[in-house]
């Protein structure tokens, strides 16, 4: 999980928060309610996750519960990877 959190954090910092303090983005920082992930950014993130981990996400995966924080994203990726196995 930690690896996934680190990867996604790097992606978000690089794409949407360049120059921001990495310490300010924690695994529990709200990503959707804080405006970091809007609908377009969410779709970009989906493309990143699918490409990075070789999994396929569905429209119903894109909610606050699954993508709301780095922690939740990591759990979603992990569960998808587990299903694939």
């Amino acid at each position: 999980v930690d690896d996934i959190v680190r990867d996604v954090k790097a992606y978000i910092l690089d794409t949407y928060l360049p120059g921001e303090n990495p310490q300010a983005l924690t695994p529990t920082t709200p990503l959707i309610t804080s405006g970091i992930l809007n609908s377009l950014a969410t779709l970009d993130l989906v493309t990143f996750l699918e490409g990075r981990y070789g999994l396929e996400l569905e429209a119903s995966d894109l909610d606050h519960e699954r993508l709301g924080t780095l922690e939740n994203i990591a759990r979603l990726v992990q569960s998808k990877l587990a299903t694939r196995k």
Partner: protein
Amino acid sequence: MPEALAPPTRQLGPIATIVLQFALVLLVIWQFRLESRTFLHVMALLGAGFVVHALLPLRLRLPFFSVLSLATVLVAFGLWDGAFLIALGMALIGICHLPLPLAARVGLLLATGALFAVWRAEWLPAPWSVAIWPILGSMFMFRLALYVYALKHDERRPTLARTLAYFFMAPNVCFPLYPVVDYATFVRTHYDRDAAHIYETGMRWIARGLLHLILYRFVYLYLVVDPAQMVNLGQLVQFVLATFLLYLRVSGQFHLITGVLHLFGFRLPETHHLYYLASSFTDFWRRINIYWKDFMTKLVYYPSFFRLRRRGTRLAAIVATVAVFAGTWILHSYQWFWLRGGFPIEAQDGLFWGILCILVVFGSLRELKRPAKRTLAGGPRWSLSLALRTVGIFATICLLWSLWSADSVSGWLTMWIVAANATPRDLVVLAALFAGGLLVAGRPWSVREPDVATAQPLYRRPAVRSTAVLVGLLLVGATDFYARIVPPAAAMVASLQRSTLNARDAALQHKGYYEKLDNASRMSMNVWEIQGAKPAHWVALSSTPAYRWRGDFVRGDLRPGASVIFLDRPLTVNRWGMRNRDVPQAKPAGTYRIAFLGPSIVMGSGVGDGETLSVFLEERLNAMADGGRRYEVLNFAVADCSLVEQLALLQERVLAFEPDAVFFADSPRLQGPIVSQLLNAVFKGAPIPYPGLEDLLRRTGAFALADKGVPVPFQSVRAGFGMLGVPTRMPWPEAEHRMRLAAADVVRWTLRSIAEVTRAHGAVPVFVLLDNVGNPGKEVVPAVREAADRGLLAIDLTGVWQDHDQAALRIAPWDNHPNAAGNRLMAARLVELMQQQAGALHLGTRGEKPRG
């Protein structure tokens, strides 16, 4: 252990604070009479419910909230209608859980929805009141989709308590327009943080909601101008700004609603976030009505995108965005159907959503190419670039909003005619607005507050801030304390403490009685709240067989011999086309005859044949009659009869009855019916029977309304089309605007003609200013003085309703026409005022008070 799961006794301090704040909330609602009386009752119930709820163990709180929500339905609708509302809702919930495939359940839900729609449209009789539909609709029309979506995608089964709480959630029963709360969010956020923090946030949002609602009242009463009355750039800018600012009511209600839900543990996200300060169109879409954006994103945007993304991200994003906006347009009409009836599909809506869609698509594509930079720590203190962008977006949205709110596209285009008329004061105010806008908009207001409570100075603590807002509102509302020091401010605040119609809506409602211009889709929430309860069979007189449309200068009159039920009362017309008992045309000896012309108030809309103003007037005068003299009052009034039409009817039929006095009655808004009637005559090509009047009308240029061709606004544009050989005509709104500019002259001409014609036939002309039940406006109506100047006796009856229980004098809550008691009261006052001019009227009555 999370605080939410801790024993409630550990939360006693915060709970007591919330209880005190809630008492302040109730006081503010009471003091400003916000929303309805039902709202105050429901809020009081919820306040008591909060105490019990907060002290219950966590496992019992949701079931308690469900029961409390169901109780609010019964409080608002009573046992009978409330029980039906709950039963119909339970039927829908039951279908969601039938042991059938999902597709079959969705099919059943659609079929049931269609049956409900038939009831909503009042095509089938039902044992419940039609008033339940807007609330039932708002509870289920969108939430059902989210609930079924959750049933499909979420493995956790909903409990009965959670389902009931979701659909019947308090305080939905007071708000037909309700945020589309997502089921998954509703479940996820329930006591997911410290309870005291959730309650504090809720109270802050409630205070913010109340503030928005009071600001809305100010905008509604003091900033909204009637587009038909605008004459310069300043008023135009004020109108455009005010139409967007009116949205404060929606954001106020939504903050209030989600704030209340916080008090029951639902830590729902914000519904609106500084939407006047959006810095791009995509940003605007994400800030205003966030729940709707989330609803469309979840059910339309993501599914559309995923279906198409193999064909390319850009194409998928464009199609998905278009689908969202097309869906929003259609669902807006669908929502309108449940809330107000009717299914409006209008050009303004299409243009508004279409243009906004194009702007958002371009914004999205730009964002896809170059993602906007976010910030975690806040940006610079002030940025010119941000200020310019934000002011630009605000101005554009104001323009779009004014188009969306306009009666018609051509009406919206026509209103820009007045932009050419700019005074230096207008330009200074505009420059000041621009500069002020830049100052405010350049600050990075969009930085969110920290999600978790952190140590803050006392004055920034949520509880302190919301209490300060509530106490501040109460102090502002206590006008008695400062009325002597600053009377204008006290009077202004006092006016905000009543839910009254502004001048524009009062005019619209007045028009609606007669001309069916109360287009439901353009009606303001204030008018709709009154009109929404009107039964479907309460139609305009012109839709009944008692009305006879004419093709000439006079639009219509009463059909001789007609007998109908109109507004639930018998309406009978005699052989002469009067709502009167039968009378011989020749005046009997010893009789003093008054011919009474006027609009619906005089005709007696909503009262029986024996309960009209003329009947009561005749009774009173005869009760006071001296020396065997008899009085007859002949009712020549017709609904929607303008003053100019009264002149025509005077010559056509009234004078043949040899009246001793002719009463011409109209309301303070007498110009509206005149403009409407004259436009009608011009459009139909009906001859104008008065050369003087025709000359006045020709000078307005409005005769171009009758040209054959395509309606095109602005003379210069029509001329351009003409050079290309394309036939055009003036559109109705432009002709109306031009005619309105001449309306005061037309009134003066009409009064003079009325006086001359009446006196030439030996009768006394009397102008009676009257109005439906309500308080008279503050403005002086020039027609009374002008009537007196032109030789008519002038009587002002508009103050007759003051100091009376007005609700007891109306024919219905949604219709301000006077009932029988109201007509009796008007007759009594009219006789008093006639007595004061008894000599001029040659009345010859005893100076005593009438009997009975």
